[in-house]
């Protein structure tokens, strides 16, 4: 596996990275390199220039303020999985990050790289969509943010512009009475999610006041399931199963391990189990 020839540049700041992006056509940013380099080794990606942003400390770190958590794009999966801030305010994101690959992958891979690469089997995207997170981008012309639900556009396609860097994601902290869970059905070869189900429910006075379910792996982008039928119920197993069975994917993806139909089926089962786990955590 030998990549085609490329030039390597290391950016010392976000601004430098942005100008390097402008100067070099078809250049690629490299964060942890754990998706980019495999693509280059298979010669599926042949960027003439790789811009290493791996050392930009300004893009690393996790904080909480004003009811939302902020995670810098260069924060590694390992740091996310072990974060006290997230454990207190948004444990489901840490839970999902802990399911990624193995220790080496988690030590190198970053949340920004993960969602910018947008593999349909990634663990992070369904959680961000579930949380209603926003993705923050910077370009020479300024900054903008986009809702996670709009960020993922298609297979390996996102809303990141050619001249943009993803700087951080922001997600509302989970309030009292809210439980959330991420359950993964792992692909035995790749370790990615065949299906990843992210669910959250809010319970007040024994009644459900809000519920969400987003399933990754069945479609090119995370699939939100309408589980509003749960609101007002006591979240019985039957009610949960009925709600999760609403998962629908028009053109489910499949491979030699799991067909599209099967993924949809597992999505329903894991959706149900994730909702039940979220319910148990909410109380």
């Amino acid at each position: 596996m030998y990549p085609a020839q490329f030039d390597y540049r290391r950016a010392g700041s976000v601004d430098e990275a942005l100008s390097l992006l402008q100067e070099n056509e078809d250049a690629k940013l490299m964060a942890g390199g754990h998706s980019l380099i495999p693509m280059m080794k298979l010669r599926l990606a042949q960027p003439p220039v790789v811009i290493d942003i791996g050392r930009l400390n300004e893009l690393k770190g996790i904080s909480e303020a004003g009811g939302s958590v902020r995670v810098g794009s260069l924060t590694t999966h390992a740091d996310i999985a072990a974060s006290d801030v997230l454990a207190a305010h948004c444990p489901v994101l840490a839970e999902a990050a802990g399911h990624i690959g193995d220790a080496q992958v988690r030590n190198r891979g970053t949340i920004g790289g993960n969602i910018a690469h947008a593999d349909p089997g990634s663990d992070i995207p369904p959680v961000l969509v579930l949380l209603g997170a926003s993705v923050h981008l910077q370009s020479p012309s300024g900054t903008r943010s986009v809702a996670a639900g709009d960020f993922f556009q298609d297979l390996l396609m996102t809303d990141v512009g050619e001249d943009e860097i993803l700087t951080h994601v922001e997600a509302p902290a989970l309030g009292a009475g809210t439980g959330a869970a991420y359950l993964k059905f792992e692909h035995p070869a790749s370790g990615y999610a065949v299906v990843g189900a992210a669910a959250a429910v809010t319970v007040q006075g024994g009644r459900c006041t809000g519920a969400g379910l987003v399933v990754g792996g069945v479609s090119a982008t995370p699939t939100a399931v309408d589980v509003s039928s749960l609101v007002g119920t006591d979240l019985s197993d039957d009610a949960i199963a009925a709600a999760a069975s609403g998962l629908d994917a028009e053109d489910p993806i499949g491979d030699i391990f799991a067909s599209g139909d099967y993924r949809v089926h597992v999505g329903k089962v894991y959706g149900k189990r994730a909702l039940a786990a979220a319910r148990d955590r909410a109380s």
Partner: protein
Amino acid sequence: MARVLGTSIKRREDPALITGRGKYTDDLKAERMAHAAIVRSPYAHARIRDIDTSAAEALPGVLAVLTARDVAAAGIPGVVPVGWLLPDLKTPAHPMIAADTVRHVGDAVAVVVAEDRYLARDAADRVAVDYEPLDAVADVVAALEDGAPAVHEEAPGNVAFDWEIGEREPVDAAFASAAHTVELDLRNNRLIPHAIEPRAVLASFDSSTGEMTIHMTSQNPHVHRLLMTLASLGMPEHKVRIVAPEVGGGFGSKIHHYADEAIVGLCSMKLDRPVKWTATRTETNLTDAHGRDHSTHCALALDADGRITGLRVDTAAAMGAYLSTFAPAVPTYLYGTLLSGQYDIPAIHCHVTGVFTHTAPVDAYRGAGRPEATYVVERLLHLAGEATGLGPVEVRRRNFVSPDAFPYQTQVALAYDSGNYGPAMDRALEMVGYDDLRSQQAARRDNGGKQIGIGFSSYIEACGLAPSAVVGSLGAQAGQWESADVRVHPTASVTVYTGSSSHGQGHETTFSQIVADRLGIDPEAVEVIHGDTDLVQFGMGTYGSRSAAVGGSAIVKSVEKIIEKGKKIAAHLLEASAEDLEYEDGSFRVAGSPDRALALGDVALQAYLAHNYPDDLEPGLSATSFYDPANFTYPFGTHVCVVEVDTETGSIDLLRYAAVDDVGNVINPMIVDGQLHGGLAQGIGQALWENAVYDDSGQLVSGSLMDYAVPKIHNLIPFELDRTTTPCPHNPLGVKGVGEAGAIASPAAVVNAVVDALAPFGISHIDMPLTPEKVWRAVNS
């Protein structure tokens, strides 16, 4: 002297390997070394209209681009031979580089040599091959259908061979009068070996001497030298040295002689420079000989008491596009001969069709034929347990060859030398707490939800293919003995030159234990040299779990010769008669006079000084032996697998895995356990995850580790191991071999467990690998 045989001394190989100091082929560098990249067919079957190498040659730093024309121009044999011939075997030529037709994705069509490997790869992409794609057939069953695309004109109907063993009529009679019969159509899934180290070669030709040194990933350097010189490069055997440095696993895939290694040799000859090539993981998957790939119909007949009366097996075995080194032997003499399992079966007939397909060749892979045979027998025994109502334990017990029946002649050529099958089964049942498991299973069945299943595999294995005269009569183009040269140095330390060729097994540790035990010296005083045709006398290498039984026995033979000679020297020095001398704990002693003794070192020194020495003896204290075993060895055991099946998704969790193996005497228990662990991982991998999948056009869809699932540590559970010990009666160590047992036994144990769990759903068979989707579909159909 503390006992060293049978103790778990640490592997002396490991400090270098785990600190990154092991030198593998790809770590080696040579002056003026160039790099090769091989241009491979993207089609499973195509005619080559034209190859334009000019764009590649034009890249600065590219040294040569060779095609089949250059092989022809070099005037060398230029082929990759098959080393096992069956009657009427079709042996179409396998050219080193495809000349006019490519027959599988990955078939070599050209090679580029450049100053660095990146450049070589870039240039390879610029070699323009004009292909005319042709229809291809990748599936072993489809290849036998009328009108299937032909892989070779010389093999009508894609049949490479048609082979049978046993007698048909008695089997037919057994079925005609059977009280119970069970039958099964099964696939034994195609596997890709996946040694951690890909194949690699560094060939260094020197025109000034006419000599070539080839460092390569080899399990048998002398065999590689023979095939490489005779059939591929046409060099004199004595001018070629093959060295296997550290080799990072092989599982059979590094036994075989491949086109790529020969191509790199040719490049070095052409350029008069060292040339290196290391397969990428993609190339490994496309070109390493794969394993298994059978389609089988099989049936078992039993009488009213549940005693087996007949076994019938009909198998189509894929050979791939070309016959790899030992390919024809694997689904025949290593498969049909094992079909009696641990059972007294009065009538067996097995028919095998070897089938060419437009895929990578298929050859020996860990277990080679025996896992396929065990899978057939043990799946049928499971079904027989159900059909007779006896259950899996009793139906096996009732049919075991009884301990007093050994030597036991099977109906399929093999004569089992020894065995005692009941105790291994008893112990396995005890380890898992069988009765309790059955009650847990019953409770789950009542409550619904996740189901528990218990699966058995009582396997027989045949290691150390032998003796040479017999394997020769069966078609082997090689002997199956092993060699050892043991040299005692003047200071009584020892160097062993063994024809076995370790590639991860730990021969340096275990062989030093053998010598230390026999000579009564410290294992640290023994050095073990292997894997170099210039250092070591001709040897057959390491495969088929043969190294301890055959290679170890050769070492013992040499040590015995040394002791005999030492006795003569000591007798001379002690002024005693050699017949009166004993050798014990590192000393030669006169029997009955304990004070008249000489240490090994005293005798060794005198052997080299020869100052005070018997007239009729040559100086020196070393001995070379070639040990040709009297028979195979026959390890056996019972494995029990317990699984939990999530019927809602079809996914399977391993709960328990207990293995009781009888591998004869054990040299190093830790190494034996390690071999079992590895074999079990591979066998469980075959049962649950691994699958080489070609699509209808012959593209390998599982060509990367993103799609081909090799088991990872978190997929497995701690294995529970125990042993019984029935020593091999015909070799001096009483050892049998353990390298493949895990991979042979476990697929059937796992599948039987899953099928057992799903019995309430009326499921009697699911083909491997038991992916969740397949299980879920079976449950829901």
